[in-house]
């Protein structure tokens, strides 16, 4: 069973958001990394780039597949996880910790309220895998 931490917000595209003041830390969920398989490459934007909500900000590649990743909330990239360039497998081993992807300065921090709660996301993935 996939791990879904209580204190995070979730998108239907399988990203998670951790709110830190007016910044949002974004990564992909345990469910997502598991269905993707061994991650071998992560492509991220540069700091300073701006994204609307639900815009593609990069891609995650496993041996077999390429998946785009989307911003659950709008904002400007403050920082990216540069360690993923050399150790993309951290997305598999620690999706909610060392596997984080970008930190975004939110243009509207109220946006996170429209995302799924942990319980809602869990129901959503259950329905999707049935």
């Amino acid at each position, binding site marked *: 069973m996939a791990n879904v931490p209580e204190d995070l917000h979730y998108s239907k595209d399988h990203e998670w958001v951790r709110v830190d003041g007016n910044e949002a830390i974004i990564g992909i969920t345990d469910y997502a990394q598991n269905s993707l*398989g*061994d991650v071998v*490459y992560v492509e991220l934007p540069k700091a300073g780039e701006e994204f609307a909500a639900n815009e593609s900000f990069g891609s995650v590649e*496993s041996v*077999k*597949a390429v*998946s*785009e990743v989307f911003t659950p909330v709008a904002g400007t990239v403050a920082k990216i996880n540069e360690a993923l360039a050399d150790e993309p497998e951290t997305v598999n081993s620690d999706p909610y910790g060392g596997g984080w992807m970008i930190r975004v300065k939110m243009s509207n921090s109220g946006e996170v309220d429209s995302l799924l709660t942990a319980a809602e996301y869990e129901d959503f993935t259950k329905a999707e895998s049935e």
Partner: protein
Amino acid sequence: MACVVNDLTATAPELKRTPLNNAHRQMGGRMVDFGGWDMPVQYPAGTIEEHLRTRTRAGLFDVSHMGEIDVRGTEAIAFVNRITSNDTTKLVDGQAQYSALTTPEGTVIDDLVVYRLAADHLLLVVNASTTDKDWEWIKSNHSGESVELNNVSADYCQMALQGPDAQTILQTLTDVPLSELRYYHFTRGNIDGVAGIISRTGYTGEDGFEVYAPPDRAEQLWNKILDAGKTDTPTGVLPCGLAARNTLRLEAGMALYGNELDESTTLLEANLGWICKLDKGDFIGREALARQKAEGLKRKLAGFEVIERGIARDHQDVVVAGERVGTVTSGSPAPFLKKNIGFAYLPIEVANVGQEIQIDVRGKLVGAQVVKAPFYKRAK
């Protein structure tokens, strides 16, 4: 997070199943639709570990979806020799041969392995997704030779045990002296008391065996081989899915039907001149292939290695000096080599080793270089 290349979603119930379907599900295989077959793309260990274990120890693959066509009769060899490109007359009993079913244009209906069981009995092992097409093609090209043709695909399960430990593991289950079985040779024999065929063949670039047996004994053999190979230990045999099968064959420079080979590419363009025996006598496509050989190729299959950051994928365009000159037929990370590699058809002028090319990776041009295939060759 939306998949843009290969969708790894759950499969529909009407898919065909091999006799090992339950075993795959019980062991946590992730099942996908592969050409109408419900097959494991990977097991819990993951594609990279499955790939590496096969290179360094052993991997076990269910390949029961492959098709088998039985050809019997006094003219079995003459018939198969006329519809395939390699020289069937060179085979002796107990020998297998890589070959191809060719069109009159020299393009490829399918690639296959021809097994000579006896002078009047051959077994053609063909690709899963092309079995029905091959069967129709073979029947429609039969013209008067004294042969009996049977599609016996459902009569066999087939599994491949590949890797440096394959012989040691399989030897614990059979009295057949495996060390005496040479590459591309086979023998009938018992495996764990089950009568079958043991063949020293494979699709990984490693030493290994393919075992053919009755489908109702598939689970028994699968489990016995895993047990014999101490699958529960960190250096034991791993069950492997289709994703590892693909990366292993690509690293070893082997063509995949539907990617490198199809009815629009000739055997010569695919670097398979070594299975085109133009002097063996007439066969379907001989004239066209002889003409192409005399005129020279305009394009050919080239292996490449990505130099810049990025992974080339199937169907992406190849760009040279700003022009789109070809298409990637297979592109993937190579887990053992730790490189990103691929094959592409390229105009002959830009297909030489060392040629710099670019791959259009979703709108971004990524630098790559033509290299010699196979990318990986095992130490003998």
